[in-house]
């Protein structure tokens, strides 16, 4: 191998010698800082740039593969970041709306995340990550920035179970905000709620807002329950069927507030005695 290399050098000795001397000369020239050399350096930079630019069209598979991998990693990281930012933005929006609600209300609220949700049964519930240690008690109302969610039916130290409006056991005393017509909101297993005990002659129209009324022992008055989506007279009855679309989208619900509201026990006792 060395012999072969030596033979080649010997064969091309003139070119080797001139290449060595030319290289030394160029090396020495490169150390000059004269205006001429600055000009030549500028030309050289342009020439090298053009050369690199023209050579860049040639595919360098190794570099492309490496670049692809790097870009894929970057893409993944950026996608992850975008997703988290989007999540953060939505959370921010929700929390801002919740804070508005908190500021406007007259009751204290305990913020909670929904850590469990059941929407497939007739008695649907949600599990919250707050409990007795945070002051949550049974029968406290659960609300979101959109309106009434339900009430607490069970608690432990750090968790509680909430009974949502889409539950056959729930009854909420409510009224039509515009006409002050009273009724009872309940769920019959369908998509929407029903406002019952509304007489045919009562003034209820589609689009009317339904809120909690003064008559409720568990919910303070004025909490938005939903919007009337349909009214129709019940055949052979003095009442009309009023369908209410819930204000809260239970499928997308993630954060709620437990309202620190307890019904007046003397009132409850009195009402029970009267029955």
């Amino acid at each position, binding site marked *: 191998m060395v012999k072969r290399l030596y033979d080649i050098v010997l064969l091309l*000795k*003139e070119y080797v*010698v*001139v290449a060595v*001397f*030319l290289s*030394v*000369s*160029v*090396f*020495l*020239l*490169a*150390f*000059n800082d*004269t*205006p*001429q*050399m*600055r*000009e*030549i350096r500028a030309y050289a930079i342009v020439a090298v740039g053009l050369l690199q630019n023209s050579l860049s069209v040639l595919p360098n598979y190794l570099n492309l593969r490496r670049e692809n991998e790097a870009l894929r990693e970057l893409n993944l990281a950026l996608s992850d970041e975008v997703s988290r930012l989007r999540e953060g933005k939505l959370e921010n929006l929700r929390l801002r709306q919740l804070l508005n609600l908190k500021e406007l209300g007259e009751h204290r609220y305990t913020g909670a995340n929904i850590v469990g949700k059941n929407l497939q049964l007739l008695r649907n519930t949600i599990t919250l990550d707050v409990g007795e240690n945070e002051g949550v008690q049974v029968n406290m109302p659960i609300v979101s920035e959109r309106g009434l969610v339900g009430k607490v039916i069970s608690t432990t130290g750090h968790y509680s179970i909430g009974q949502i409006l889409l539950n056959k056991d729930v009854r909420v005393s409510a009224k039509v905000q515009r006409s002050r017509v009273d009724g009872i909101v309940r769920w019959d297993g369908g998509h929407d709620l029903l406002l019952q005990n509304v007489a045919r002659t009562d003034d209820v129209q589609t689009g009317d807002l339904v809120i909690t009324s003064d008559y409720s022992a568990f919910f303070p008055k004025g909490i938005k329950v939903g919007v009337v989506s349909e009214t129709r007279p019940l055949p052979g009855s003095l009442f009309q069927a009023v369908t209410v679309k819930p204000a809260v989208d239970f499928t997308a619900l993630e954060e709620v507030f437990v309202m620190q509201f307890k019904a007046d026990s003397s009132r409850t006792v009195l009402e029970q005695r009267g029955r």
Partner: protein
Amino acid sequence: MRRFLPDLALSLLVLLVQTTIVQFLAIQTIVPDLVLLWIIALAVRRGQIPGTIAGFALGLIQDLISGPDGMLGLAALAKTMAGFAAGYFYNENKTIQTLGSYRFLLITAGVSALHNIFYFLIVLQGSGISWSGSLLAYGVPTTAYTVAMALIPMFAFARKQLS
């Protein structure tokens, strides 16, 4: 090695003449390049490698003695190229014939043109003079003057050839 000693001595003498006497031969600012002429003659007589080495060495010395105004490496580069190019016309059996004939003038003209084009193109960078202007103002006159000076060795070798 001993046969190169006269060449070495003559090289130093030519360098001395170029840096001292030749300026008195200047026509306006144009002077003949005796060092280049000597390198061409050496390459024709001794071959490509001696011509290249002589070109580099003498050019480097010229760069070193040109002071801070010069560009270290430029003369070495140009004269290395010149020595290498002139070496192509080396023929061991026809050295005297080549040096003593018009062929030497043609070789000098070609190699000198190559040398001067390269040299002045770099030296005049940034001076505002165009490439064609620099060739006409400096490259061609210097080449012509050097070729004119090549007549002296040509006639000397022609006479030697006759005798």
